[in-house]
């Protein structure tokens, strides 16, 4: 792949990733992740 094309794709995807992270934080997704991660996930450990 052409270097310039690859660089352009990298920049676009990094900007997209930044927007996604910020959007997720602004809509409270981190609270959902935290709430899920601090409790035993019975489904994950095969008990639910």
């Amino acid at each position: 792949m052409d270097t310039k094309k690859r660089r352009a794709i990298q920049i676009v995807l990094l900007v997209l990733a930044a927007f996604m992270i910020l959007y997720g934080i602004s809509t409270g997704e981190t609270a959902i992740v935290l709430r899920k991660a601090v409790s035993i996930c019975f489904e994950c450990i095969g008990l639910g």
Partner: protein
Amino acid sequence: MKLSNEIKRKLIQIAAFGFSNSYPGNLPAGKLYTGSWKMFCNPGINCYSCPAARCACPIGAMQAVSGTAQAGFGFYATGIVLALGVLFGRAICGFLCPFGFIQELLYMIPTPKKRILKPLTYIKYILLAVFVLLLPEVMTNVYHIGAPAFCKYICPAGILEGSIPLLMTHPELRTMLGMHFVIKLIILIITIAGSVICCRFFCKTMCPLGALYGLLNKISLYHMEIYRDKCVSCGKCRNVCPMDIDPVKQPNSAECIRCGKCVESCPKKALSQTFRTIKMTQKENRK
């Protein structure tokens, strides 16, 4: 004393494993770390129900959000995976993933070794599409909450890192053992046996996170460069590759975990793993 790249990589893997599971004191007590680090996603697969775990599993985090009644898609976790993938590609798998490290340790057990059949490597993309992305959205209960389908039905890390330590310290949980646990235990046994015989069996066949990072390998900043004028097609790089790739034919293959064994093995220094391009290196050499 000069350390080989492989020893340096192992040291990074040990450090990453330690950071990902930096609360081993919780293991005897059978309690989880409940601090604020758990809102951050670990770069690799590490079950957040492991008592020692510091961060959230990114695959679990994606499903946790997409499975809730209000949220439709896990933008936060997916954004983190996307950013890490664009920066490092599957080097995350090769250097930072705790479950990948466990598999490499299992592979050190002296047994006859086998290569995986190429078509089996496409299973992980099906697991990603169906169990991680689709099912948490469509398979919902009466409260419109979806189960984390990959974690619930497939992921062996949950049994190894979560279930076994918790069942040992919480006898009351043993009353909940049933067919669900048995099936996941069978998947874990297959994964362990597979990892002993075939390097990184789970990474090659089942890991949806590896599938995501692998899709970004072709455009990641940290990538493989080949100096084709130096390559003599000796095949040494292909022979040492733990992911069964020919680095000369597919330098930025979706399977490449950037372990660097091919780079070290090349007698002509024709391979390089770098953030730079060949043009940038040549320009610097001319100055």
